[in-house]
């Protein structure tokens, strides 16, 4: 493993100094106020929610039924066992003159209380089996979407069905991360707000194929009753059929590095006609926006484009300052970035490096060219070099 010779990441300054005062202020808050200025988020979490969310699919409803059944079973056993125990605790006390009995075994009793739990377990397993089988049946989907976990965003590719060909990258809204850093959260959809949601039609069977680009992530939408790990190098699948329209939220559920808490999932369920209209418009817009990899760019335009790509993809690790930190290498004054041989940096972006830097093949040729050009001309890097999309296209082969 390579690692840059930096010190341990320190709690970065903003908002984290003067913590004794903060602690006092927070204690005061706790004493005066136990609820925040926040409302339930339909399709997402509710304030003081104590149960599974309202189900939006049959599977989620079945899971909730199982959970209610389990609470009843456990509740009855709880009352039975601890009723006996606490009766004994109060009645069979030495201080009340209780004399100890001397029995210490009874084969009959022991067989009974082994067999009964065994039967209860079978009674629990049968309904659960049905739901497991239903959950795993991903056949006959109306729409197939590949969800790819990236550090730290989701990519959605519509592979099959209406909307085939749509590609969406869904990132946490930048304002949310800043609010988190500042310690000033606000809004009912705090940390759940994304730039572009996953859009699906209501009442259709949607198969989600998961995979990942770097480490394991997990695609979770509680209202749909789905959670499927997204595993690099492998594909897995799950499915849902939303019964109602609206917005539904989830978050990445497998530890995936420092921004684990900042890659939410937002699914928008539309009526079928609206979905078809959206898909049509999205495909047209996508075609219009597509860059011609053979276009020759001016330096300034490419740097400006690269700045956007950098902010959206690179700044989370390499920092806006390009200084990196910890195991993350600095781009500012980096020998690879400054190198006159442009292919070196192109290869790092296409293939990743040392398992720390992920591969960024999913970006377009123009985006990769732009961001490399940007880093070659930003901070103290004033190389004047320009990488054209055609260079990237050539390197891909």
């Amino acid at each position: 493993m390579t690692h840059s010779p930096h010190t341990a990441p320190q709690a970065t300054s903003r908002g984290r100094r003067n913590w004794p005062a903060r602690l006092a202020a927070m204690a005061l808050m706790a004493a005066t106020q136990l609820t925040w200025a926040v409302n339930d988020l339909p399709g997402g979490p509710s304030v003081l929610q104590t149960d599974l969310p309202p189900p939006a699919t049959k599977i989620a409803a079945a899971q909730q039924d199982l959970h209610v059944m389990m609470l009843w079973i456990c509740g009855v056993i709880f009352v039975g066992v601890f009723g006996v125990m606490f009766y004994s605790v109060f009645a069979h006390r030495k201080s009340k003159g209780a004399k100890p009995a001397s029995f210490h075994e009874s084969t009959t009793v022991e067989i009974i209380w082994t067999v009964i739990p065994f039967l209860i377990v079978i009674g629990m397993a049968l309904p659960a089996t049905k739901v497991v089988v239903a959950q795993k049946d991903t056949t006959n989907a109306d729409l197939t979407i590949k969800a790819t976990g990236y550090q730290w965003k989701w990519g959605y590719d519509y592979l099959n069905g209406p909307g085939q060909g749509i590609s969406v990258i869904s990132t946490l809204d930048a304002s949310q991360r800043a609010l988190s850093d500042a310690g000033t959260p606000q809004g009912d959809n705090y940390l759940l707000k994304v730039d572009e949601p996953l859009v699906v039609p209501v009442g259709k069977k949607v198969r989600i194929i998961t995979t990942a680009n770097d480490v394991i992530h997990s695609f979770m939408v509680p209202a749909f009753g789905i959670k499927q790990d997204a595993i690099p190098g492998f594909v897995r699948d799950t499915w849902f059929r939303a019964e109602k329209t609206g917005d539904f939220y989830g978050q990445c559920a497998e530890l995936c590095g420092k921004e684990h808490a900042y890659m939410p999932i937002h699914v928008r369920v539309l009526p079928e006609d609206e979905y078809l209209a959206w898909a049509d418009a999205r495909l047209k817009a996508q075609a219009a926006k597509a860059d011609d990899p053979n276009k020759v760019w001016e330096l300034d335009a490419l740097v400006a484009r690269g700045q956007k790509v950098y902010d959206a993809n690179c700044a989370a690790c390499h920092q806006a300052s390009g200084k990196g930190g910890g195991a993350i290498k600095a781009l500012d004054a980096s020998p690879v970035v400054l190198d006159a041989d442009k292919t070196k940096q192109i290869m790092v972006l296409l293939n990743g490096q040392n398992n720390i830097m992920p591969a960024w093949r999913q970006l377009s040729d123009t985006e990769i060219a732009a961001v490399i050009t940007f880093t070659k001309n930003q901070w103290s890097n004033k190389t004047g070099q320009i990488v054209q999309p055609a260079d990237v296209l050539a390197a891909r082969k």
Partner: protein
Amino acid sequence: MSAVLDHGGHAHDDHAHDHPHGWRRWVYATNHKDIGTLYLLFSFTMLLIGGVLALGIRAELFQPGLQFVNPELFNQLTTMHGIIMVFGAIMPAFVGMANWMIPLQIGASDMAFARMNNFSFWLMIPAALLLVSSFFMPGGAPAAGWTLYAPLTLQMGPSMDAGIFAMHILGASSIMGSINIVVTILNMRAPGMTLMKMPMFVWTWLITAYLLIAVIPVLAGAITMTLTDRHFGTSFFNPAGGGDPIMYQHIFWFFGHPEVYIMILPAFGIVSQIVPAFARKPLFGYHSMVYATASIAILSFIVWAHHMFATGMPVTGQLFFMYATMLISVPTGVKVFNWVATMWKGSMTFETPMLWAVGFIFVFTMGGFTGLICSMAPIDTQIQDTYYVVAHFHYVLVAGSLYALYAGVYYWAPKWSGVMIPEWKGKIHFWGSLITFNVTFFPMHFLGLAGMPRRYADYPMQFADFNMVASIGAFGFGLMQVFFLFVVLIPMMRGKGEPAPQKPWEGAEGLEWEVPSPAPFHTYETPPKLDATATRVIG
């Protein structure tokens, strides 16, 4: 422990001339009682360190938004809290109890391999230093979670290698400790102490030691493969080279699930000794307790993938692991029924050890119920990797293992130290811990059902209220352990308190109560002659 720490002041001393004094007594220790003391003090130190890390987590989660730590440091806190508590606090604490009590309970003069015993303790010190110092290494401490899932481990800095090295050392220590315990129990029992007359604590440790010998090498394999993936170009788990990250999880949990029982079976043993002592009535169903322990241990090898329902196993895999997991609840339930039946029509008193034992049964069983709920794969789809799981395993590891450890400490401390712990101290510690524990962890069930993922440095605002309650509870729970340190432990080690009689608990039975309090440096140097029940020395 005072009598162990200062010597010479007691009439029935101690062969003080034939063992080293001062620091040499501890560094060169070969006496099982000294090594037991070292283990217990070490594990309590690690408990406090792990607790400070936990309070760092809870301070950050007190409110939404980032206040104290950044997400990098937050992940380091959760990771190291888990590793330190599992490998540094809970496991060594049970080994410490085993060292102190097993030779006393089976009438042996010491552990079978006295020098290896010394080595297995002192190996833990460099490992602990490596773990704690990893926070100051470049890139900070490991931050991939205590489960160290690939390929996230490939992204970690050099502290990951330090962590792997430390876990190897701890593993070696555990294996040596286990072999020592197995050999001691099988070879060094006093004549008449047949296997089926052994105290439950000895039985549970015998089974636990076999589990450790079976699975620690599996962990060693998993982390060695991680190491070679990181440095030597192998691709066991690295998908970029054709490796399989899910294989890591299978290997890890093949270790990890028996590990859960390694941390709870000795707890069952402690509780199975304390409940009869304070109910003044023999343990109900001793034989079935032994068989239930063995069944739990065997079943623990075939349930590992219930930690992995969300990875997307085939339907038959999910069903198999769901059924097998549910099955484990049967022998576990039998144990609870046996404890309750032991209490039934007893003549109970509630001194501190009994309070912790009854508290254990009550709160651990709640962890058992949530375990049953987690075992159901469709429900697990909702709660896997959420705070529900965090609540569940703290109910079994804190309210289970830690409560049983405290029960054992209060039960046997008079034998160790020669002084009684005043009841009011133990009662404050117990009730304070019981209440704050539930304030901390009960709301986490709600957070998990509502969908709050674990290992999150920041969370949507709807989760704020229960997080605040949990954080307040956590600081209270931490405070109760500081109370234990200053008000219970240190005065006891200084020898303050009423002198303890040889058998301080009226209903207690077993060979440990056949030697004076504090236990002399050497006990049972010649094999004692036992009565028919193997609980009394008759010559």
